[in-house]
């Protein structure tokens, strides 16, 4: 079948396909960070966790031949870094934002260091669901090729939403995040809850990283992440700590990132660097518009350092 020139429709399709692809790591990291922040901790080290997850996921996937084993390994590596973050932050008088930056540096460096032998080989690839089989256009088929992790995230978001609102664990988490005193009065160990929440957040961030190396772009090298981990922290605020909103905002960010290359392919090449700035400018605008000195950000856990 002849590939007809799609022109502007092609751009839209490319943006949709790109949004799904690029949003997946954002989705996982933001869901993870939501859990962590709901417990009252900020983890800025997720960028390092993401890169570490990408490296370990690829390494284990390559060595074992199974991409899913790689995903699990990536999650475990991520929760390891989360444990480190929590352990240091649990010490009195330690600023969690600073620790996050330290872990960013450490995690990224560690991943680069250990990942050297894995740059050359080809790794296994995660499966995907072909939803576009009905279309005659290869581009539509490619855009609707939804990867497995996106589907996991799609299910995970409402599950976490429901879990936070309707289960006992969710209540405990939210109490620790909203009022440390109330949690203590109820007999919960704040350190324990925050440690577990940070580890869970790290696990999800690691999984998000494994997506980059096991699916798209699908290999391990040094330039893999372009700040997605740090962006996710902004994303969580944007999404008001609501897992469902995290899903939609991740798609939005993914679409913004996919717009630049999509326009280039129809010949619009001016200002391609400005497109790079689009997600960040968007976040800043939304943050400015929706924040206020008078009210706390709606939905923000009160114990978060960035709100105090």
């Amino acid at each position, binding site marked *: 079948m002849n590939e007809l020139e799609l022109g502007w429709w092609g751009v839209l399709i490319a943006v949709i396909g790109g949004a799904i692809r690029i949003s997946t790591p954002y989705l996982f990291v933001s869901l993870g960070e939501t859990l962590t922040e709901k417990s009252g901790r900020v983890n*800025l080290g997720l960028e390092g966790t993401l890169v570490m997850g990408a490296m370990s996921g690829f390494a284990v996937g390559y060595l074992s031949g199974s991409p899913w084993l790689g995903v699990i390994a990536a999650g475990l590596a991520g929760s390891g870094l989360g444990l*480190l973050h929590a352990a*240091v932050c649990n*010490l*009195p*008088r*330690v*600023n969690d*934002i*600073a*620790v996050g*930056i*330290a*872990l960013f*540096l*450490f*995690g*990224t*460096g*560690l*991943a*680069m*260091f250990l990942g*050297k032998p894995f740059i050359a080989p080809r790794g296994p690839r995660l499966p995907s669901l072909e939803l576009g089989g009905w279309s005659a256009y290869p581009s539509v088929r490619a855009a609707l090729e939804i990867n497995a992790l996106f589907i996991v995230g799609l299910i995970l978001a409402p599950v976490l939403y429901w879990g936070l609102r309707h289960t006992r664990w969710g209540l405990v988490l939210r109490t620790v995040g909203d009022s440390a005193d109330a949690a203590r009065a109820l007999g919960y160990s704040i350190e324990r809850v925050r440690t577990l929440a940070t580890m869970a957040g790290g696990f999800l961030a690691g999984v998000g990283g494994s997506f980059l190396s096991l699916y798209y772009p699908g290999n391990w090298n040094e330039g893999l992440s372009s*700040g997605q981990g*740090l962006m996710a*922290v*902004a994303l969580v*605020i944007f999404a008001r700590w609501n897992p469902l909103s995290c899903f939609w905002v991740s798609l939005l960010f993914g679409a913004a990132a996919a717009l630049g290359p999509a326009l280039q392919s129809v010949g619009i090449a*001016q*200002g391609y*660097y*400005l497109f*790079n*700035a689009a997600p*960040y*400018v968007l*976040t*800043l605008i939304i*943050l*400015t518009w929706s*924040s*206020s*000195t*008078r009210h706390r*950000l709606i939905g923000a856990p009160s114990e978060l350092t*960035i*709100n105090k």
Partner: protein
Amino acid sequence: MLSAGAWRTIEAAAISIGAIVVALVVYGAFIALNGIDPVAVYRVLYLGAFGTLFSLEATLTLAAPLMLTALCTAIPARAGLLVIGAEGALVVGGLAAVLAGVSAGGAPPYLGTVLVLLAGALAGGAWIAFAGALRLWRGVNETISTLLLNYIAIAMLNHLISGPIRDFGETLKATSWSIPAPFRIGTLPYLNVHWGLAFGIVSCVVLWFVMRRTTFGFAVAVLGGNVRAAQLAGLATARLSMAACIIGGAAAGLAGAIEIVAVHGAASESLVVGFGYGGILIAFLARQNPLAIIPVAILVGGISASGGLLQRRFDMPGAATAVLQGCIFITVLAGNTFYGRWRPSRA
């Protein structure tokens, strides 16, 4: 007996040094696990950082901008703001420096240099002040906003040097117009290090004096300790916060201008090499004390300077020094918990 202040200094130094030692030991274990002799690595670290005159010069050249970018985190931190936007402020400072230099084409050399440096500092100050304003008037967290502003500054740089201010005669890589040659500054006497080092050291000393020995500095410290208390004491908290942001941003902007005036002569992607993020590490290591920033910047600069030698001698990846710096950062932050555990004995 020593005064409480002297004890605090000794305590700070002891804990910081202790943390670095712990980090080196942990790092040594990590190296050993990778099959390399840690003692050999320590020796090469020293050789590459301080072992020869050449190494020392390399270390100081790296330390110079780091001192200034560290101030960008340290000064607002004293006002209670956690700013990580030095990278963006440096880039914006560099861009402003180029624009000022090109516009001031016919000016006499010294005046031109001063104008260029001033432009960089003002631009950097304005950049971080913008984040400060967002915090004061819209409650936007300054850590997040300065982080975003970093990326925005870099995108602006790339866009401008690819077209609007590009020197198309430079075919090697996208570079901006160059500032006039008479405005450039050279190296210090006897040391093959540019004058930026002097600017860095002087800025740290001056700001230490300002923050520790003037009313303004004291007011900022009160603000940083407790916002409510500062307001109750009648301090103009908004103005103090903005001032801290402007000073910090100006330091980083100055670093960017120095990169233009002393090193490159024009703006290009060479402005984005991580000096901003290195500055954050140094500020925390120095416990936000401008005077302590000087030796800490030299230490961190030394580690970075020996990275190349580590690569060449042991075939270690370039990230080897980043792992060490990360270790140090973590141990120093963890070490924070030990402050105040020891009290000076009362005579």
